[in-house]
């Protein structure tokens, strides 16, 4: 239990406006060990990014509210920290790579200065300017950019290079946890392969724990130790990569997700998509949120919210597993 780096319990987040309340994240629980890579998979609007922003305490102040739950980071409750305390964690211990490298860089600051900025802010061991510059060269080299380019501006870099700069910024302070929010979605496949293999190497050499947020089951398969499938703000299935990719038991949504991806090795031309759409997060159905689209729907699904069932490391929230052999009810 002591090697837990991040532990999230029963977390719920809502966005409240005068008109409506959006239940973006509903009662999610997961934890992360040191050096572990955790994949958070789901479609647009499933609440993946909200989860990441909540961990970073970057929710929009006006509308975003954590309604219940706790986040513990290295044993400390993150939700009780003051903003200055949080600021000292953000960027230094927990860093984030945002989805869109084009908009997460400052266009009027050279990339070297942008990488140095975080180090100057968190300069606890009083590094000199030269030491910081040496570290900038080092991280640029780490992500495969010649350090001579540190005086250039973001517009002089291509998309893949910009994403590397963003990764270099995140790594500059050697964080223990890296949250990567769709780090390769905006990139071409060949560049994506470069970035992913780089992230993998960095994780192996630096031992950084990582939360990999993506909608691409392929990327998760290639990088993650543990995986959670998110749907309408809930974790419908959690397990090790082996549980998710090789077990025969799945949440119907996970099965649907796998059926929707065009498989390179299958000969079938037709795909088996999930019918319908994700429910409106302002009006979530009372029972299981996936019930309206579920091919295996039973009467109980619409009436009662399913609890989680556990089989070893594998956790599924679905009524189908009630009373099944090997599946035990998970205590909340």
């Amino acid at each position, binding site marked *: 239990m002591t090697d837990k780096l991040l532990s999230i319990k029963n977390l719920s987040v809502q966005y409240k406006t005068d008109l409506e309340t959006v239940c973006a994240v509903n009662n999610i629980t997961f934890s992360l060990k040191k050096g572990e890579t955790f994949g958070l998979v789901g479609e647009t609007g499933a609440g993946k990014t909200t989860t990441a922003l909540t961990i970073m305490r970057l929710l929009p102040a006006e509308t975003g509210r954590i309604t219940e739950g706790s986040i513990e980071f290295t044993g400390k409750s993150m939700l009780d920290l003051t903003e200055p305390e949080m600021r000292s964690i953000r960027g230094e211990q927990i860093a984030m790579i945002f989805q869109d490298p084009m908009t997460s860089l400052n266009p009027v600051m050279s990339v070297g200065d942008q990488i140095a900025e975080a180090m100057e802010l968190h300069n606890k061991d009083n590094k000199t300017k030269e030491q910081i510059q040496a570290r900038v060269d080092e991280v640029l080299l780490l992500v495969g950019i010649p350090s001579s380019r540190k005086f250039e501006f973001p517009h002089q870099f291509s998309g893949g290079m910009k994403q590397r700069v963003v990764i270099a910024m995140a790594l500059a302070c050697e964080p223990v946890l890296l949250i990567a929010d769709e780090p390769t979605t905006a990139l071409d496949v060949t560049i994506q392969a470069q970035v992913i293999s780089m992230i993998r190497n960095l994780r192996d050499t630096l031992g950084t724990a990582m939360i990999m947020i993506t909608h691409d089951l392929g990327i998760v398969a290639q990088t993650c130790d543990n995986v959670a499938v998110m749907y309408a703000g809930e974790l419908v299935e959690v397990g090790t990569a082996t549980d998710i990719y090789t077990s025969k038991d799945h949440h119907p949504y996970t099965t649907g997700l*796998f059926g929707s991806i065009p*498989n390179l090795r299958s000969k079938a031309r037709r795909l088996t*998509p999930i019918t319908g759409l994700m429910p409106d997060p302002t009006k979530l159905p009372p029972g299981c949120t996936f019930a309206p689209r579920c091919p295996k729907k039973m009467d109980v699904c619409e009436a009662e919210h399913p609890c989680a069932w556990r089989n070893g490391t594998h956790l599924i929230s679905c009524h189908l597993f009630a009373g099944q052999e090997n599946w035990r009810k998970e205590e909340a």
Partner: protein
Amino acid sequence: MECPANTCSLLETRHLKKYFKVKDGLLHAVDDVNITIPHKRTLGVVGESGCGKSTLGRTIIRLLDATGGQVLFNGEDILKYGRRKMKAMRRKMQIIFQDPYSSINPRMSVAEIIAEFMIVHNTCSSRTAAFQRAAELMDTVGLARRYANVYPHELDGGRRQRIGIARALSLDPQFIVCDEPVSALDVSIQAQILNLLMDIQEDRGLTYMFITHDLSVVKHISDEIVVMYLGQCVEQATSDELFENPMHPYTKALLSAIPEPDISMRTKEIKIIKGEITSPINPQPGCRFAARCEYAMEICRQKTPPLLLQPHVVQKEASEEKHFVACHLYGNGQNQVL
């Protein structure tokens, strides 16, 4: 297939070129591309961003004016058509755009968007008939009729893309350019739209040119695939042949770069292409992939490799299985030029 050789293709381009004038010179977006799409078939065009695949699609349907070459539609060169003839021609060829958010007019209702083309081209006897037909099209693409009077911003991406498809179908075209129609959509919605496109093709006997950067999508929907790199076609083969037996180093790297949803593939060696796409502005003679290619030889930097038919593949199968590659590694003098 049924028809004799040379006449059975619906669309053909010959030495099609599209150059853009930019500050530093000429940007060769499409450079000497020859493709052939038979009736009722789907040609997939894959490549990374900036390889000219969208420009190719737009040049073919004359949304952009070609710099040179020919586009033959049923054997006639449509690049020579005048305004009036071209307008009539446009009924036969339509396009579905990548971004369903920006390719439809936000100030028109769904029914108005779908009916607009029919009103412009006068294909219906009256406006009422056009709206009636629009309602039928909404059924075809799986949009509930209650959405007829709503505006696009009220709908999600999947439904908006269905509007785009209904609009493209409204004039009963023979040929549709699908320019990354599913890239902006979530996987579960993406599968719905791909199935819809395949159903419509079967029902109406349509011919598609399917442009995408996603190789797994293109494998599903295409009969034949063209791989583009910096404005040129580097490899062309039937879908199964290309995935089983990729020949061009670029195609090989592209295929190995796809992260597969299978943990047993974790150990798979990924061929990482070093570097990034070189500039398409005033390209030098020679293979355009040479700078990133691990097999690059002296000749690759001097002479542009022609697209050649690969003999061993022809022997293996009948005329259906043609495999063309533009790479000096395979040019041994016995190959025949496309």
